[in-house]
């Protein structure tokens, strides 16, 4: 036991010494670590302060040119992004009429953008541009500090109006070609040449539809769409109304035209009055046949739906520009048992009319309908010219597909219209 106790006593001082030295080493290491951390953080602050003062790299290849194919009053400023684009808050564009002074901020482009269109220039005046790649830092006192580097244009830029859209040259070529063809066929028809026009079922059915209303002793509704007279579809619809009006006058059937635009009301009224006069029935025309409902799309649809359900017309024509209300109208007419003929050049509405109407004039047929119904040679001649245009386009598509598929010539670039 005594031996054991003596051994224990001999270890204690040893442990104490080791603990003491460990404590000293530990405290020193903590001190060193703290000093290192302080040193690092001070270094970081110094670097941050230095970095805050260093502006991002300037933009490269700065250039300013007159905006091509415009009516003047615009200059395009473009540049290659700063290599420090990720740090850039915005690119500031400044402008002056002299090379060295008087620069004013005219706009900003956010990070990643390398173009700015200056729309506030006067044609004929010279302008110098500078672009500043700018970044901001938040100071300790919550103020924002901005630093930037600039790049300047060397040559002055002058804006001017152009006399021709060069990017639309191919379009002009085809317009002139097809217009010439249409005029050629109009003149040919005028000189008495026989013009064959293919049958269009929807237009041929107009007679049948008006006749049906007469036999049933019910009304005909003509809906000219929800666009105003500045839409070519509405004009085409009104042209068809004239022909339908003549038939209705001959058959002594009540034709009603609810409209959604005041100007369409005035025009439709004049057209219908003329149509009744042309077939010798001016007395049968009543101004109230054409009446205004509302400009509102769904209000118009609701009003017509109500009229269709209450009055059960025998025939309904939808001729013009239609949007979401097309199916609401056509399905209600279908449920009322009316024979329906629709025509529109709105591709997204065509499937609805096809599903709900008895006959549908697809796109171009709407514009051909008036000429087709008139049987007038000059008008039929214009349809022939239209067919010539189709042949041109079909040939262009086939040739274009072959060239693009089997060769390396990128011909489509010459036909892109901007």
């Amino acid at each position: 036991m005594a031996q054991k106790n003596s051994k224990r006593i001999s270890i204690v001082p040893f442990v104490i010494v080791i603990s003491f030295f460990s404590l000293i080493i530990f405290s020193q290491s903590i001190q060193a670590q703290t000093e290192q951390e302080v040193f690092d953080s001070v270094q970081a602050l110094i670097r941050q302060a230095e970095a805050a003062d260093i502006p991002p790299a300037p933009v490269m290849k700065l250039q300013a040119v007159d905006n091509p194919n415009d009516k003047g009053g615009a200059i395009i400023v473009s540049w290659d992004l700063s290599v420090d684009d990720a740090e850039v808050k915005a690119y500031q564009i400044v402008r002056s009429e002299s090379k060295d002074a008087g620069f004013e901020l005219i706009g900003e482009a956010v990070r990643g953008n390398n173009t700015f269109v200056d729309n506030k220039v006067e044609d004929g005046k010279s302008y110098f541009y500078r672009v500043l790649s700018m970044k901001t830092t938040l100071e300790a006192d919550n103020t924002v500090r901005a630093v930037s580097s600039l790049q300047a244009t060397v040559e002055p830029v002058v804006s001017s109006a152009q006399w021709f859209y060069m990017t639309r040259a191919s379009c002009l070529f085809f317009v002139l070609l097809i217009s010439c063809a249409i005029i050629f066929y109009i003149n040919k028809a005028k000189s008495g040449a026989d013009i064959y026009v293919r049958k269009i079922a929807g237009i041929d059915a107009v007679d049948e539809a008006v006749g049906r209303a007469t036999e049933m002793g019910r009304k005909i509704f003509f809906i000219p769409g929800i666009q105003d007279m500045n839409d070519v579809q509405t004009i085409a619809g009104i042209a068809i109304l004239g022909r339908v009006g003549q038939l209705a006058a001959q058959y002594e059937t009540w034709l009603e035209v609810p409209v959604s635009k005041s100007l369409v009301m005035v025009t439709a009224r004049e057209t219908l009055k003329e149509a009744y006069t042309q077939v010798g029935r001016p007395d049968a025309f009543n101004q109230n046949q054409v009446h205004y409902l509302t400009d509102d799309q769904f209000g118009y649809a609701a009003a017509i739906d109500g009229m269709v359900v209450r009055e059960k017309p025998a025939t309904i024509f939808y001729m013009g520009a239609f949007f979401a209300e097309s199916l609401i109208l056509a399905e209600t007419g279908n449920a009322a048992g009316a024979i329906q003929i629709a025509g529109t050049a709105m591709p997204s509405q065509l499937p609805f009319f096809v599903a709900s109407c008895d006959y549908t004039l697809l796109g171009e047929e709407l514009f051909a309908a008036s000429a087709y119904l008139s049987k007038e040679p000059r008008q039929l001649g214009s349809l022939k010219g239209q067919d010539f245009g189709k042949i041109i386009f079909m040939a262009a598509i086939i040739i274009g597909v072959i060239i693009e598929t089997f060769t390396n010539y990128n011909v489509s670039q010459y036909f892109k219209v901007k």
Partner: protein
Amino acid sequence: MRREIPLIITTVAGLVFAVSYFIPHWPFGEAESIFGDWVAIIQAFAIWLGALNLVKVSLEKIYRKKEDALYAGIIIVCLLLTIAVGFYDGFTGGPQSSFRDTGTSFDWIYRFVYTPLTSTMFAMLAFFVASASYRAFRARNFEATLLLIAGFFVMGGRVPLFHLLLKPFTDVPYFSEFAGWIMAYPLTAGMTAIMIGIALGIMSSSLRIILGIERSHIGGGA
């Protein structure tokens, strides 16, 4: 002259618009905005023609005690009430406020009467689409059958159910890929053909109007 003057105006306006598409220089470049302003002004005045016509036709229906006289009465009452509320808000709101400001009675009518009614009409479209689809997809002939098959795949590709049904067999979304192919190629080709036809139709129609061959829109025959 009653015919000639509108024809001359139509021809000149039509030519100016056609030329302005290719010539950006003044005055052609400005033509569209100038004519646009004129159209807006004329439309603003013309709205009265429509409103007065609506009142006249509705009053006649009430006077003659027609079948839909009740609806005509509702139109008159709603029209007058809305105008009155608008005027009241306009006069009582002070010079800095508008009758259309949030919180006015007119705004209340807009938000709690007009908007729900419009939404209701729009919502009805869902039912009409269902009934029209049912009719369109009946496989009566070859074209309708083709439409049915295409519709089946496009609808199948647009909903997750079909993808879930294939999930035990494959992770590849065949339905949505096939639907995407139908939309990207056959549909686009068909739509493009229709668009080309429409463009040619507009061109032909415009030429007829500019040359004075088509006169129906100015109240005259061909």
